[in-house]
């Protein structure tokens, strides 16, 4: 099974460069230019990792993540933003329950590494859950 990642940014140039960056990482990539399209994708796909911009028209990144939690509470959430004041970061953590807050301009290698770590985290989490599940069943049996 390959991991699914969704990138949301109202800037086409950013999405294009991310597409290039993640092309050979082996993840299944999804891209959306606004929060609305992103939510549509979330309804259809079992997305493991969401990375979104903060400043976007209509719905900002934190508002979007809040809605995404209703659809996929278990996905890991990241923000990749060109501007981070304290309030934005706090909101992101409190309301968007973000796992990491990354800043633009990003460094390719660092970004790739962060994402790899995220998927590592997801992998461990999934394994732990299934072990837990298994253990529970064994106890029942």
């Amino acid at each position, binding site marked *: 099974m390959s991991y699914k990642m969704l990138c949301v940014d109202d*800037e086409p*140039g*950013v999405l*294009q*460069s991310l597409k*290039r*960056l993640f092309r050979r990482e082996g993840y299944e990539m999804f891209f959306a230019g606004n929060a609305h399209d992103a939510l549509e994708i979330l309804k259809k796909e079992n997305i493991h990792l969401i990375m979104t911009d903060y400043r976007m028209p209509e719905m900002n990144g934190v508002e979007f993540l809040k809605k995404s939690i209703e659809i996929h509470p278990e996905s890991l959430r990241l923000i990749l933003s060109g501007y981070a004041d304290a309030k934005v970061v706090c909101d992101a953590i409190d309301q968007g329950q973000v796992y990491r807050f990354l800043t633009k301009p*990003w460094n390719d290698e660092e970004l790739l590494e962060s994402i790899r770590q995220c998927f590592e985290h997801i992998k461990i989490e999934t394994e732990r859950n299934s072990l837990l599940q298994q253990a529970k069943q064994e106890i029942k049996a």
Partner: protein
Amino acid sequence: MEAEVLSKNEELLKRALYRERQARFKAEDILEKKTKELYVVVEHLKKQITDRIEAEKVIKRNQAQMIQSEKMAGLGQLAAGVAHEINNPVGFVTSNLQTLKKYSLSIKKMISEYDSLVSSVQSKDIEKSVSFLTELAKTKEKEDIAYILDDLDNLVKESIDGTNRVKEIVKGLKSFARLDEAEMKEADINEGIESTLKIVWNEIKYKCEVIKKLSPLPMIVCFPGQLNQVFMNLIVNAAQAIQEKGTLTIESFVEKEDIVIRFTDTGSGIKPENLEKLFNPFFTTKAVGKGTGLGLSVSYGIIKKHKGDIFVESQVGVGTTFTIKLPMKGAAL
């Protein structure tokens, strides 16, 4: 008898001398005392003067700080927008260049294999040629050359767009601040409005549609950078008064002896009881940390300095209009 007279005279003389000496001592004493007093007074005066100079320095510094902090207040709000606007293109252009570096490695690899193939063909080494050819096909596949060739033009085009955008923003910032122009000079007010709009665009683009009705204006002598600051304050205020979506109409025209600039928004409007306090320093209805309340008071000062006028009409729930009148003649200080 004679001796007696003599000694008596001597006695008198002595006494006189003594008196005179006493008087002199006394005078010296008084002089010294007076000098001391004078010294104290002079010292006191000196201290007063230095205190006064210090106080004036502090006042000047505070004034400078007030002006500076207002600049910061206005620009602080913009920093978010400008940072975002610059960090986006810088982000993707940098990333694209990194990708380009990888593409170039792949292409170089293919070319070096192609060179080997050519030389083996030239030396008619069929076996080697075949093996290089297979290698080349493999590499082409592995390096995803088809994708690279397909993407290359887009990558370059997008990156050039990105750097052009950064260039535009920096140009806009410069013409907005016009930092080199602390002096009065002839300027076109419409140009000032345009360059200010460019700068605040990020702050307002998601919320308000801007309708410009700018008539051609004569050049006027003014502090262009300061007037831009006024425009910025009014535009940002208008955008902040708009909750979800609205319009901001900016008009400019000549009326009699004045240039008139009008900013009309469809924002929240201003309560009648607040209208008179609007231009007071530190009057703000915005949350702590959001507004300093200096925007309008400083704008008022700048317009007065240009011998102009600024006034406001507003209706709660409908919107607000700020009107500026600048005399075409006599704007000079």
